[in-house]
Structures are given as structure tokens and as C-alpha cells.
């Protein structure tokens, strides 16, 4: 009793011990310092796995090749061969099981992404031919006349 001065310190130590015990139960066991050291590598290791589990949606044109070989072949011969199928047809995800049908973007805006004329020097955009959407058949979808798989001015 004679040294009551230390009582608050005991109380504080008690609280710290409680926090440390709580920590044991609260913090996941794979949380710790990893390869990049404490500054850049202080994390829950399983989170890397979590990120790897994210579903792949864009499968790439090779995914389409086997079933849609005709389309695949035809577009490869056109200037649009550089464009991925999924840029217009939407992500395949698990097509044909899920989704069974893909929603095709046939909007004028889709074509204008490249074909609105912006003759910017030192940008690849200057080399792409464009149309003025305000004067060029403004009420029609581009695909009414142009076949995106064979755009070589071959009117449908």
C-alpha cells in the first residue's frame, strides 16, 4: 500500500496486455512481414490468393476461334483484324454456358471511338479515316451500310 503511486501504471499495463491478447484472436495468422520488408510488405498473405481468384471475363479472340471460325477468319483479313472480338461483342466470360448470348454494341458511338476525325499530329489517331457524325447519315447505325468484319468500303 505504501507505494500507491504505481497503481495507474499497473492499470495501463493491464490494458496493454488485454489489447495484446485481443490481437491474438483478431489478427489473421498469415498477417505479417513479407518479402518487401515492413514498409512495403506488411500484409495478410492469403490476400494475394484472393486476388488471383478474381474471375477472368475477357477471354481473347482465341476463345472464339473454334466455334466462330468463319467470323474469326474473315475479320483477320480486314483492317479491323487488330480489334478484339470482345471489344464489340462484350466479354465472353463463360459463353456459351454463361452468358448464352452476348450483347453486341452496334452503336454509332462505338465506331466513333476511332472514326471521329481527330487529326492530332504525333498521335496514331491522325492516320484513321473519320466521318463527321453530324452530317454523315446521322440517324442510321453504321452497321446498316458498313460490315464491321469487312470494312473495306464494301457496302452491304
Amino acid at each position: 500500500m505504501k507505494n500507491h503511486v504505481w497503481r495507474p501504471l499497473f492499470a495501463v499495463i493491464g490494458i496493454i496486455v488485454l489489447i495484446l491478447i485481443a490481437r491474438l484472436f483478431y489478427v489473421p495468422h498469415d498477417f505479417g512481414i513479407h518479402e518487401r520488408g515492413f514498409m512495403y510488405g506488411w500484409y495478410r498473405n492469403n490476400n494475394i490468393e484472393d486476388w488471383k481468384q478474381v474471375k477472368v471475363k475477357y477471354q481473347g479472340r482465341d476463345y472464339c476461334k473454334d466455334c466462330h471460325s468463319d467470323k474469326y477468319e474473315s475479320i483477320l483479313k480486314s483492317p479491323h483484324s487488330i480489334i478484339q472480338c470482345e471489344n464489340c461483342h462484350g466479354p465472353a466470360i463463360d459463353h456459351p454456358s454463361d452468358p448464352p448470348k452476348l450483347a453486341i454494341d452496334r452503336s454509332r458511338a462505338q465506331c466513333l471511338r476511332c472514326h471521329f476525325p481527330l487529326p492530332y499530329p504525333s498521335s496514331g489517331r491522325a492516320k484513321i479515316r473519320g466521318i463527321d457524325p453530324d452530317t454523315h447519315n446521322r440517324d442510321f447505325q453504321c452497321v446498316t451500310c458498313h460490315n464491321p468484319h469487312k470494312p473495306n468500303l464494301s457496302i452491304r
Partner: protein
Amino acid sequence: MISRRDFLKYTVKGAAGLAVPLAAIEIVNPKKILADSQGIGKTRWVFLVDTYKCVGCGFCVKACKIENEIPYDANVTRTWVERYVNTKDGRLFADTPKGARDGFTTNKIDLGLGKFQDVKNEDIRRSFFVPKLCNQCENPPCVQVCPVGATYQTPDGVVLVDRTWCIGCGYCIMGCPYGVRFFHPKYHTAEKCNFCYHRISKGLKTACVQACPFGARMIGNIKDPNDPVTKIVTTERVGILKSEYGTKPQVYYIGLDEEVR
């Protein structure tokens, strides 16, 4: 008056009390550095952007938003494309409407607050597009400032966010000099480009690289000398963004200009 002896006593005890939590961390997590040494030394993901090839179509942004489940109409995005327009009378304009999710389909510059600037093609001295994404810095300031260890750098150099651990303080958003971070509208945790970690770890390209028709975007492993990206980065003249911050960004640019912010 307090005696010197008493003072020292208090000081030592106080310091000991403060040191306890620091020491405890080491005790509770013994299996550090060794953990998993598979990736070390083999892979360091880097990115290469060729601004000459970019046409500002925005397919990369669209693909990114869908691939990485960022609500399509939310005004945030992991990657975006900027347009710079330098006029003959010396003015500089730049914009990135909706992050160029729908590309650039007008020559009007978006000035914000619903205002637009019409720039005639003949007044343009030069103009170009610059795609942006997370630089996966070698010294990421966003990771340094995270108070809880919810964002970190993987052994192969990608900065990830742990959505189960992020408290949403926004310090990392403030700490990023490149403005690549934001709060995910659904998960309300810090969100950023992670080079499509789920894709590159399966050997695929990132969604933006795959979606780009012009080859303006490339991803590669700088530790592989035969990687096309490595060859360009090591043999050609490439630039990085905002080197003055000392973050050592790992997205390299061909055709970068002083006026690119």
C-alpha cells in the same frame, strides 16, 4: 521538485511501456521474410505505353472497368486516357471525360462544370493521348502511408489492396502522386489498378493490353531479358511520370512530354 532519480525511473518505465506493443508484433508473427520464396528474383511486372500509337479509343478503359468489376457508370476508374492539346498560340488544354471510357468523340475539350472549349483542328500545334494506370512504384508511397497494412507490394512488384482489412481512411489516396486510387463504390475500400493480377498470374495479358487494338499498351517482366518490354525499356529512350517524387514508377512511356502531368 522531482529528484533526478525519480525522473529517470519514470522515464525508463514509460519507455518500457511504449516498447511493449512494438515487441509484441514480432512475437505474434514469427514466420516473416521466409514465407513463400517462389516468385523472388524471377518476376517484376512492368508496363510500357507507347503514346504515339494511342488513338484515344478508350477500349482499354471499358475492358478494365468490366474485367475488374468497377461499376460501369461510376465516375472512377482504374485506368484512363488523357488528351493533351497544345495550340499554336501557346495554350495547353487537357481533358479525360469519364476517364475516356467512351473514347474521344468530339474535338471540344471538357473544361468541367459543364463547360467546353472548342479548339479548331487548324489551331492545334500538337496533340496526343496518354493512357494512365497505376505505376506499381518500386517505392509506393501509398503503401508507406497505409496505417493498417491493408495495401502492400507483392514479391513480383504489384501493389494490391486487401478489401477485408482496409479501414477506408483515404490516406493512400492522398499519398498517391498519380491519382490512381479511389474508393470502390461498392466495397468502400481503397481501389486501384493491379495489372489485372488475376490475369497476369495465369499467364494472360491484362484486360487493357488485350483490348488495345493498336499495341499502345504492353505488359512484361523486366527480369526476363527476352521479354519484348524489357528489350524496349532497356534499349530505347523511355520516360516515367513524376520522377521527382522518388517513387520509382514502373510504367514506362514512349513519347512522353514535359506537359504530361
